[in-house]
């Protein structure tokens, strides 16, 4: 029996960039096939070629042994190939049901609304999803929004499902749930192409792994032939993973103190409730549990504080004018990169100076100093191994992980006193994630204090000096990564134990 889908010698170039050089691989019926590769290796581009979003320059696709050409994602969808993109295309004001119905075109909507609803409900039940069809999409978590995208594909009876970094935005619990669903789909004989940078997940779920490096398919390995180390080695090839050491014990000096802070979200619920925290100089403080995001936004001035105080070096900055200038000294790696992290139409160079474009070194009077801006970009591109396109091209064309690196490089460039990082390594390949950890650790030895917010307990364990655990917006207690076990932290996060 021929493989379900076969790609042979695919090549795709963009002006000035070879995104895919020569990629061949195949998908068998009923397997979960993982694509692994560094940021900018060409994974997303390959999936876009596969679904007909881009036409390849050369090379071909075979479905069930027959050559096919997709002119658009609609063609591939018609043949049962569907993709969940990293950026969902949902209408926030519409209900879940309406969003699903919009996607099911070609169905006589007026007559079968009730029937459709029954079918959707059946799918939700079958996979044990927790989704309220009447809820407006804007109220849902990102994880729940992903379910909507998945259900759309299931209702269209896709045989091949493509998931581009689905777990990057999920909590560990949500990811576990997704894996259950994927395994079930596999049992039903569906194929899944899965993309992730998290080795633990790759090991857990893949039947086969294909490794992509610099636009070329390096090899495909069967389950049993690979372990984390081997995969990492193949993926990184000759590149070196940066090494770093955790800093010495930090000083007693308190740089930031939060007293009884309360923040409500736009749904009127309390995200932070009487929350208190102390950050010491040179400390890396991890935050785990719900309410992390509200904390970061309150600290960086993106959210209104309802009550409570924030003290910097003993001075109340909650509402004073000093706040804005102080906030300027806090580097912030925001959660929603595309929305507030980058200016998509400006170039990489211009995005790297977004926060300090007024700095003397980047201008002569009112004129921008192009050479200084270019030099700065070259320095950052080297340091963070950013895979940049041709100079001057808009930053939105970079791969997801490389956009992330641009933001981190910018935020860390001014030696801030305090860094508030939300999921800083989300979407980064292992080498880049390690480099970001190194930068944070090196910063700590130079006195920078970091509030690190992450869903990834591994990450918190690895780099943090202390981990503050939040439950329902309140501080439950601090855990010491060297002595507390994961289980203890897990219990604290679910509110069952307080330290």
């Amino acid at each position: 029996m021929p493989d379900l889908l076969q790609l042979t010698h695919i090549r795709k170039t963009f002006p000035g960039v070879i995104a895919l050089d020569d990629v061949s691989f195949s998908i068998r019926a009923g397997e979960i096939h993982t694509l692994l590769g560094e940021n900018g290796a060409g994974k997303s581009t390959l999936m876009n070629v596969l679904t007909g979003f881009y036409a390849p320059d050369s090379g071909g696709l075979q479905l069930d042994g027959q050559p096919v050409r997709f002119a658009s994602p609609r063609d591939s969808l018609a043949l049962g190939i569907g993709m969940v993109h990293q950026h969902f295309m949902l209408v926030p004001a519409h209900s879940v049901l309406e969003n699903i119905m919009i996607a099911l075109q070609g169905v006589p909507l007026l007559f079968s609304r009730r029937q459709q609803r029954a079918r959707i409900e059946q799918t939700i039940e079958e996979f044990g999803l927790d989704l309220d069809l009447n809820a407006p999409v804007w109220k849902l978590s990102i994880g729940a929004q992903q379910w909507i995208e998945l259900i759309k594909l299931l209702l269209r009876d896709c045989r091949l499902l493509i998931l581009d970094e689905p777990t990057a935005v999920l909590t560990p619990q949500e990811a576990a749930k997704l894996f259950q669903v994927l395994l079930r789909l596999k049992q039903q004989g569906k194929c899944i192409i899965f993309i992730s940078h998290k080795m633990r997940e790759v090991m857990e779920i893949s039947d086969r792994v294909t490794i992509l490096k610099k636009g070329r398919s390096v090899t495909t390995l069967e389950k049993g032939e690979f372990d984390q180390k081997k995969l990492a080695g193949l993926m990184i090839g000759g590149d070196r993973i940066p090494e770093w050491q955790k800093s010495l014990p930090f000083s007693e000096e308190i740089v930031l103190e939060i007293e009884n802070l309360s923040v409500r979200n736009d749904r009127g619920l309390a995200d932070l409730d009487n929350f208190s925290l102390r950050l010491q100089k040179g400390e890396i403080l991890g935050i785990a549990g719900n309410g992390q995001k509200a904390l970061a936004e309150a600290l960086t001035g993106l959210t209104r504080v309802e009550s409570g105080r924030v003290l910097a070096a003993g001075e109340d900055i909650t509402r004073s004018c000093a706040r804005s200038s102080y906030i300027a000294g806090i580097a912030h790696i925001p959660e929603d990169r595309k929305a507030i992290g980058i200016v998509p139409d400006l170039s990489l160079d211009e995005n790297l100076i977004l926060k300090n474009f007024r700095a003397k070194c980047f201008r002569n009077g009112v004129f921008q100093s192009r050479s200084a801006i270019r030099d700065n970009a070259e320095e950052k591109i080297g340091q963070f191994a950013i895979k940049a396109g041709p100079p001057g091209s808009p930053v939105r064309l970079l791969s997801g992980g490389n956009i992330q690196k641009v933001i981190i490089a910018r935020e860390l460039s001014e030696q801030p006193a305090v860094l508030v990082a939300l999921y800083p390594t989300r979407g980064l390949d292992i080498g880049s994630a390690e480099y970001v950890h190194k930068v944070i650790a090196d910063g700590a030895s130079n006195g920078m204090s970091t509030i690190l917010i992450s869903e990834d307990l591994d990450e918190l364990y690895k780099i943090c000096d202390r981990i503050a655990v939040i439950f329902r917006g309140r501080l439950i207690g601090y855990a010491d990564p060297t002595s507390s076990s994961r289980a203890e932290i897990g219990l604290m996060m679910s509110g069952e134990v307080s330290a």
Partner: protein
Amino acid sequence: MSLAFRVEKRDQGSALFRSLTIIASVLVALFVAGFLLLAAGVNPAAAYLEILREALGSTYGISETLVKATPLIITGLAVSVAFRMQIWNIGAEGQIYMGACGATGVALFSGLEAPLMLPAMFAAAFLAGGLWASVAGLLRARWQVNEVIVTLLMNYIAILLADYLIYGPWKNPDGYNFPLTAQFVDAARLSEYFNTRLHSGFFLALFCALAVYLLMERTIWGYQIKAIGSNPAAARYAGMKTGLAIFLVLALSGAIAGIAGFSEVAGLQHRLQHGLSPGYGYTAIIIAWLARRSALGVIIVSLLMGVLLVGGDSLQLSWQLPVAFAYAFQGLILFFLLAGDFFINFRLRRVKEDADA
């Protein structure tokens, strides 16, 4: 088998592809307009040759083309500056009138002498256009009032205001009651060249293009305008004051359009009169759109428009075609240019109904 088409977004076209599309759309437009000409009993080929000869075939023709292009370049730049920030200034027409009123006021009543007169007129036009547009800027920045509506409606006010002045207080007392102001003194006129109507306003327009290029591409202000235009949330997060920027950009856009008013009265008409601009401010919107982001593009498209305006007028004279015909002709060309612009960004693909299930 039935035929159906669907629209698909295509990859960013190259510069060459863009230019070819523009040329192709002009050709298609000429082809279609040819039928109109045929219907009117005119040989299209002869008519087109005539247009080219009129607009480019003599010193006089070229000078007329440049004269027409002058206000288009300046207002095109005005609109495109606001475009870069995703602000739609539909009010360039009114701002031209306000600029012209400002310049005329100074010319008629200041009594200044030669070296000071023109700069003072320029400054008055700049301020008048800028202040006029800043009303829309203030409303938009402070209360989120849509600038499209405000700038558009203020056009009518500006044009009627100019009419009020020339029918009323500023009417030339020796003008036999025509709705005109008195002629400007020599000190209030831009110099002319080659014995034609070509005046320094054209060079002023080129200078404006250079200034706008430098502002947008080289300064930290231009940087902020582009950043806010591309992603206001990120710009705000990076500490830029978006409200203030919106206000200033609209004011600047209006001020530049005001310069066009100055150039028209000081360079060409030498007085304020009814119908000062035959819709340059509206054509400027199309020019800015076609030229996208580049100041050089504005110059090129404006020159093309200049050829059409001059050549189109000549059709009236040579073949006694009605004036409406010239307008229809120009409208057709614009229509196809915009349609061509659509095909730069999208492509049509034939769908075979029986192929996909």
